[in-house]
């Protein structure tokens, strides 16, 4: 029997996954069949491995990652001291009702199904998606791909299943883009990962509609550690979208994902994230793509929720003429710190990368851009262009920019530009003159600020983003 805890009074008219903050603020009380308990040690890892009936190599991989996690200090010499408020001993690392996702919504247990229905996932699936995976706490509750797409040879499943059913592909790429020891949180993920998507697109296949994953945290004091691995074989194309929500608890929740993308020769991957965790979630995610010759990886990363987000999607440009792009939108409201950015590592001739970041700080919110651009010796014809714009709404809003650019050699062109501004008083005055209220004028102006980026989102997302900005801007004036 499940009880609904609901703090939401009005229902939103057009709920699209993950964008509206208040839309995700509800939870159902659940009983879990599998629970690794509270705290983290070797036994936690043994438990996860045995529940998933994993092969020996992956069990050893997890155990060694756990050692790395314990050995590494928190990166507080450059990152926010807020990280020290994560109590790793009070977190539950694995909660699920079973390891096998259902193929139809009818088979999904009622309480979980209700959650996703409220978030509008089945509806969207019918409307415009080629496949959906819905993760509830540690495991996927539902995973399905449209028949036409799977007939093309596209594999789309939960990473737990991927590991079991396609070990030959999985093992070849797993942990190769982001090594376990990359940082403390990638090590943590490598030790206790569960769920996430595994996608393989065969050569030449262009997946016409996006695949989507939806991540939901339901339990208190829970840590979600999904692991996503996407491989696009030569000349293939894929758009992948992920959304996420959690109910607001008074205690901290941890989300620490690792996402690895591999674009083989000439492939194109577009990865869209709309992060809308509740404001008690620490969102510490490592995302990186490996771009082979003439391939293209584009991250569209939109961060609206969470207490602290630290996420710097990266592209390692390994093949000649590979292209990397990061488009980042961050909105930081009271009590939030969006520490986002991009990493571009050029490792072949004539590789190009672009970073465009726009952040909005509202109230006492803090938005930070942190980036790395690295062009090593003996390459030629590499180009990077980075633009960061920050908009500060209130007098006590805060924004920071910390890029690091290393260029070796005289055959590259790199430029970085950043600016900080507030909404132009002239613009507001002009709009007020024409009968708009100050709040409406402010919303319009902020929407104008992100408009050229928001347009790159799929239609449903950009409409919602606009509406959300309107919501967040309410009451921020004055």
């Amino acid at each position, binding site marked *: 029997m499940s009880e609904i805890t609901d703090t939401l009074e009005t229902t939103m008219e057009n709920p699209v996954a993950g964008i509206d903050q208040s839309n995700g603020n509800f939870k159902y009380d659940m009983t879990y069949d599998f629970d690794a308990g509270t705290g983290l040690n070797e036994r936690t890892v043994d438990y996860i491995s045995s529940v998933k009936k994993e092969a020996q190599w992956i069990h050893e991989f997890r155990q060694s990652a756990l050692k790395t996690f314990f050995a590494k200090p928190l990166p507080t010499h450059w990152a926010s001291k807020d990280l020290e408020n994560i109590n790793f001993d009070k977190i539950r690392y694995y909660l699920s009702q079973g390891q096998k996702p259902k193929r139809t919504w009818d088979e999904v247990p009622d309480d979980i199904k209700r959650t996703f229905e409220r978030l509008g996932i089945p509806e969207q699936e019918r409307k415009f998606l080629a496949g959906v995976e819905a993760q509830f706490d540690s495991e996927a509750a539902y995973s399905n791909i449209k028949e036409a797409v799977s007939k093309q040879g596209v594999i789309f499943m939960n990473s737990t299943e991927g590991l079991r059913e396609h070990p030959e592909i999985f093992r070849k790429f797993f942990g190769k883009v982001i090594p376990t020891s*990359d940082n403390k949180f990638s090590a943590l993920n490598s030790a206790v990962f569960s769920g996430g998507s595994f996608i393989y697109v065969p050569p030449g296949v262009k997946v016409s509609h996006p695949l989507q994953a939806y991540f939901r945290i339901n339990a208190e004091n829970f840590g979600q550690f999904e692991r996503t691995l996407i491989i696009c074989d030569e000349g293939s194309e894929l758009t992948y979208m992920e959304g996420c929500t959690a109910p607001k608890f008074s205690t901290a929740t941890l989300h620490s994902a690792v996402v690895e993308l591999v674009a083989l020769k000439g492939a194109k991957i577009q990865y869209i994230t709309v992060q809308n965790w509740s404001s008690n979630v620490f969102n510490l995610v490592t995302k990186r793509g490996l771009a082979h010759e003439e391939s293209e990886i584009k991250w569209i990363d939109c961060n609206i929720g969470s207490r602290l987000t630290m996420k710097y999607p990266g592209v390692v440009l390994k093949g000649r003429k590979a292209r990397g792009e990061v488009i980042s939108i961050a909105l930081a409201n009271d009590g939030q710190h969006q520490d986002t950015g991009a990493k571009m590592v050029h490792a072949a001739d004539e590789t190009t990368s672009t970073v465009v970041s726009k952040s909005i700080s509202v109230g006492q919110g803090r938005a930070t851009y942190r980036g790395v651009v690295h062009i090593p010796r003996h390459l030629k014809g590499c180009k990077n262009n980075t633009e960061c714009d920050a908009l*500060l709404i209130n007098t006590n809003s805060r924004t920071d920019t910390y890029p690091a650019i290393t*260029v070796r050699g005289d055959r590259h062109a790199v430029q970085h530009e950043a600016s900080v*501004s507030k909404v132009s008083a002239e613009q507001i005055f002009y709009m007020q003159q024409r009968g708009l209220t100050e709040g409406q004028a402010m919303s319009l102006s902020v929407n104008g600020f992100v408009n050229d980026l928001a347009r790159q989102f799929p239609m449903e997302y950009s409409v919602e983003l606009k509406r959300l900005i309107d919501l967040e801007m309410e009451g921020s004036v004055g």
Partner: protein
Amino acid sequence: MALVSTDTAVAVPHVGSFTSAAFEKHLSGSPSWWHARKRAAYERFAALPMPTRTDESWRFSTISGFKLDGFVPDAPDLSGAKAAQVAFAIAAEPTLIFVNGRLASRNPLPESLSSRGVVVSTLSEAARTNPELLREHFMAQPQKLGSAKFAALHEAFIADGAFVHVPRGVEVTEPIVLIHSASGAGTAVFPHTLVIAEDNSKVTVVDHFLSNDQFGQFACGANDLYAGHGAKITYTAAQCWSLESLSMQFNSTVVRRDARVQSLNLHLGAKQARHESLSQLQAPGGFSEMLALTVASGSREFDQRTLQIHQAPNTKSDLLYKNALLDKSRTIFSGLIIVDPDAQKTDAYQSNRNLMLSEDAESNSLPGLEIQANDVRCTHGATSAPIDADQAFYLKSRGIPEKAAHELLIFGFFEDVLSRLESEELHSAIRDLIRKRFAR
């Protein structure tokens, strides 16, 4: 390049040649009024760890280059002070010439200035004539850029330095030139210049740092500028130490209401150099213009760290650092603009341009912003690019050899900065120094 650094290096206490025995010896030769302060500074120096790889303020630096071994503090000068011969190409005679940290010779100030109360003296003299001013301003600003240990070393071992005081409302038209030179292998020098421009005064000061020989020396210097309300300081530091030397310099600039400071740092010498520059805009209407030009060749490393702090509303800062990178040289520019919560109407700009002239050169840029007020205009930019191919082709097609063409284009690249100098004489003197640097 990892955003999340993996290991913590263990900090080892390191004093190198600057042992407590060396310090006691130094102290016995310094005036007794200074002892207590120097002793406290030495204790700080000895207690502070050397910077490590995980120090953000030393990111990308070759920290091992700043090992403190093999240096001699208080080395006697055996060169016979040839410094004056290599002086700055401007008409004004250098007022003070220091060799190995001590005053070697001086030229009197014109009567017109001394009669109006302008003082250009050594710190030791100032300790007698202007003790209150010295107490208030000497090493009074915070070390925020990572070199607290080296600043403490400077204060512990400084032998003497220059003190420039311009009273309220006095305008000094001729530049005041100060020469700080070093000679002998392994000599450690601690040059110091303190400029105090009282309200509504005006002064131009040139610090010229140079070696009297080809040996490697260690220079650990400080220059502190204080501009009172409505004052105007134009300051140039020409760093021309020998190409084997190690240079560490801390600059601090305090800008009061409606004051204006323009500082230009020229980096031409040393094997490895680190320069830290802190501008504090403390009252409305203040303006700090921070300029730098660097010629990096061989396998030299130039590490520049800057901080523009806007502490009051309606202040302005403008930073332009240009580096020309040849051979296997490396440069690091790490700048930060901080706008305090109440500093509305701040106008801050920060720009680092790197001209890449070799395929083995490496530039690192870390232009940063920390903004806590919303009604501001803050912009920064960083670029790294080679010489424009069309420009190079144009010069080549007119028969200009590649090396000369590069030199011309480097001057063109530097012109943005040089043209900001008001004084034509200073402008051409600096061009002259850069030209000499290429001739070396």
